[in-house]
């Protein structure tokens, strides 16, 4: 056995099962249309039009504002009672035309359905064809792309809704043409800080990439001229040329890989799914994959960055993190990726909570297989989970040293007095997290440091071996 091979220390049990209850107490995710809206705002000159009741967009806009501390433009067809009876076709036609006329820069309108309009059964594709004709007649100088996005709220979650909208945008807009030599990058649901870091990697490797969706400017400035630049940067042209890329790098299995499969099957663009680059090894794998696809070398600078991160992690791992029990909840790609990261830094992710019901898909996830191979402690993976599952297990005696998750679970940590580090979406109760990367070498390092600092603060407030830090 070579020294760098992980040995099976003991056969620990890793279970994967849905939560036992039917109903939900404290949901982990929003519904499909919310996810679709997040994908939609990543496109430039685009205003998603949500076909449903007004709450379906108003609250989601508020949610985005809470997380990013920014405003995003999302419209509603304002479905009222008469549409519920007679159908909402007229509302779509009027909504599209009003948007087109009042927003002269507008080029894309994703029409995002909801539970109500899917049940009513409005003919979305047919209505959008009528809208398209009306737009050409009334605004002949404009080219406005109408994108049907079917996201009934009673299926999947914000995770699948995000994936569905990315796929619908590509399906509608991608068009075969001249090869661009660029690499499509499906980022999944990440923060502006992650996008900045990804762009940095592509620049260092001299790879031309199309970021889907480019949300870097969701962190946008206050400017002397008062202009507002809070919008997605992925253009119609970017989406069109996804069909002409050298390949698609899909960084998230559940949040966009479907679009990569579509491009492979329809436009023969090679599809390269990788594990989301949380932690060192996943980032290594991603960079190697980029090298493999593009033939570009991994530069010295990234070896250096990797070393800086490892150096920082080594200060923390076996002294502070080892044997510490962690619960993680959030998006599946995030939770599984962070579980792998935890293993790298000797944290023990004993409870993983994933919030929707794609149980059969999770069974095939290679990251879960890896956890089964490498864990020397028991791990419960609960899917279709809610946050009550976490709260209840803690109340039933589960001992945790750390919770990793988004702000909606804040009271679990507060009441149980367990240190918590905010990750994922939304993180409205901590400042500026959207600006920080969680992926990549730097993300791993910054997350580990946040975890350490949260633990240190907790040690001090609870007088729990706080004197250890008297010298470090």
């Amino acid at each position, binding site marked *: 056995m070579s020294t760098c091979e992980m040995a099976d220390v003991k056969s620990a049990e890793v279970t994967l099962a849905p939560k036992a209850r039917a109903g939900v*107490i404290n*949901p982990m995710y929003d*519904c499909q249309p919310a996810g679709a809206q997040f994908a939609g705002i990543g496109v430039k000159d685009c205003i998603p039009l949500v076909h449903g009741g007004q709450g379906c967009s108003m609250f989601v806009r508020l949610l985005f504002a809470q997380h990013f501390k920014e405003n995003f433009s999302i419209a509603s067809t304002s479905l009222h009672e008469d549409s519920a009876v007679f159908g909402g076709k007229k509302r779509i036609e009027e909504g599209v035309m009003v948007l087109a006329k009042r927003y002269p820069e507008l080029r894309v309108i994703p029409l995002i359905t909801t539970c109500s309009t899917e049940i009513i059964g409005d003919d979305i594709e047919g209505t959008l064809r009528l809208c398209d004709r009306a737009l050409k007649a009334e605004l002949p100088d404009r080219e406005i792309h109408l994108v049907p996005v079917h996201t009934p709220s009673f299926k999947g979650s914000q995770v699948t809704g995000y994936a569905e909208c990315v796929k619908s945008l590509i399906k509608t807009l991608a068009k075969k043409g001249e090869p661009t030599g660029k690499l499509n990058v499906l980022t999944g649901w990440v923060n502006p800080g992650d996008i900045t870091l990804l762009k940095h990697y592509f620049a260092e490797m001299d790879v031309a990439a199309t970021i889907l969706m480019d949300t870097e400017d969701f962190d946008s400035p*206050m400017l002397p001229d008062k202009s507002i630049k809070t919008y997605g940067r992925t253009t119609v042209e970017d989406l069109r040329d996804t069909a002409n890329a050298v390949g698609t790098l899909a960084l998230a299995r559940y949040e966009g890989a479907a679009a990569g499969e579509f491009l492979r099957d329809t436009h023969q663009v090679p599809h390269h799914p990788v594990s989301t680059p949380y932690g060192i090894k996943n980032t290594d794998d991603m960079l190697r994959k980029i090298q493999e696809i593009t033939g570009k070398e991994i530069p010295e600078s990234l070896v250096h960055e990797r070393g800086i991160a490892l150096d920082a992690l080594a200060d923390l791992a076996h002294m502070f993190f080892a044997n510490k029990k962690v619960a993680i909840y959030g998006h599946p790609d995030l939770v599984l990726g962070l579980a792998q990261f935890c293993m790298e830094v000797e944290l023990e992710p004993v409870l993983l909570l994933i919030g929707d019901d794609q149980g059969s898909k999770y069974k095939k996830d290679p990251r879960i297989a890896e956890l089964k191979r490498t864990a020397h402690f028991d791990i419960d993976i609960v899917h279709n989970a809610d946050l009550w599952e976490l709260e209840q297990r803690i109340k039933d005696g589960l001992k945790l040293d750390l919770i990793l998750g988004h702000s*909606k679970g804040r009271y679990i940590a507060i009441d149980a007095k367990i240190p918590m580090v905010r990750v994922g979406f939304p993180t409205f109760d901590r400042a500026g997290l959207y600006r920080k990367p969680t992926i990549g070498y730097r993300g791993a390092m910054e997350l580990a440091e946040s975890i350490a600092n949260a633990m240190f603060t907790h040690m001090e407030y609870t007088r729990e071996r706080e004197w250890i830090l008297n010298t470090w």
Partner: protein
Amino acid sequence: MPMVLLNCDTDIPERQKHVYLKSPDDDPATCLPVANAPTIPGTLSERGCAFCGAKLVIGGVLKDAIQMIHGPIGCAYDTWHTKRYPTDNGHFNMKYVWSTDMKEQHVVFGGDKRLAQAINEAFDQMPDVKRMIVYTTCPTALIGDDVKATVRQVMRDRPDVDIFTVECPGFSGVSQSKGHHVLNIGWINEKVGTLEKEITSEYTMNLIGDFNIQGDTFLLQKYWDRLGIQVISHFTGNGSYDDLRSMHQARLSVVNCARSSGYIANELKKRYGIPRLDIDTWGFGYMTDGIRKICAFFGIEERGEELIAEEWAKWKPQLDWYKERLQGKRMAIWTGGPRLWHWTKAVEDDMGIEVVAMSSKFGHEEDFEKVIARGRDGTYYIDDGNELEFFEIVDLVKLDVIFTGPRVGELMKKMHIPYINGHGYHNGPYMGFEGFVNMARDIYNAVNNPLRFLAAQDIRDPLPLIMPERLREAA
């Protein structure tokens, strides 16, 4: 022409009926904005849905009821962690939300069984809680689940629980307002009069239309305690389900938010002969009037005067300090509806502030009658204002501060206009005497924020930034 067609509305000229610019010679009969009317699709209106009007605004405030939302997960997720209404039992209402997590098979085969299962589970998981409100949503209404029958069955199976059903899917009505209405009328029809509580004072009232935002209810409760008035029920700030079943026992209904809760006060008057007294609880002058009226009703004027004298002695000098420094500041209010008329004259009288633009999401024409009667000439009064209209109005009126929601607030920040949360407050409570000092302080801190001056500076500009020498003084 008193009604204004803004440039951004050229393509939707019907918006003219919703935007009013007040001038002294207007005939009131021609200048009331049309309100509570359908939204124009695609306008980027600020409105929410009827479901949220019932759950988020009223029902979800209660401190001791499970909020079971029968529908897909989003309706529950979205109406959780969006409000600041604490309770005296550790914020049970803000910590939890419940959903039947409706899926496709329930849409196809009906969701009644799922609802029963989720209700029973919720009671089993939280055995100390015996009260529940069940809400329908768009899909459960469309597929026609018999929610009330399911609820009756559960109540037969569990005699110690009581459940109230609210049937107001998101698409009903034109805004949140419909949900307020459905909950009000449903509650009076089904729950008021089903429980008698112990009466401990000769003076009893319901406090209707205050939702304990950042502790408003707690603050006002100190006044009622000092006056010796028993508040039978709070509709619904820090409110309890069972207290609201006893609303019929009060001698008086005191109404603050007439928009969300006026219906139940009207019905209490009609059915039980309980007089409805509308007051404003924001502002020194208004709060004073309100206390005087309540005390006059009960014949306890002396207690009232004592309380008012004490509160004025304590807080008025602080308010005046801010008033002196806020003279002539220009403010906009873009909130739900009632706060427009509650605040416009109060901030003018008590703080010297001019309110120059107001927009209401879900106000009715009655709310516009009130705000136009109280508001200034030269001020814009807008029903269901939308994003492009906001930009245009901001250019027209020049603002020092805006009271609105966080999302519009972020938009205004980019335009160097400080925002204060007009729904959840920045650092409240804002009601009562102490509260209005808090509000003045938040405004003072906002308008004197150095960052907005710094933001206006282009560092490439050869002329150095001219900052006011001293923005602030020690308070």
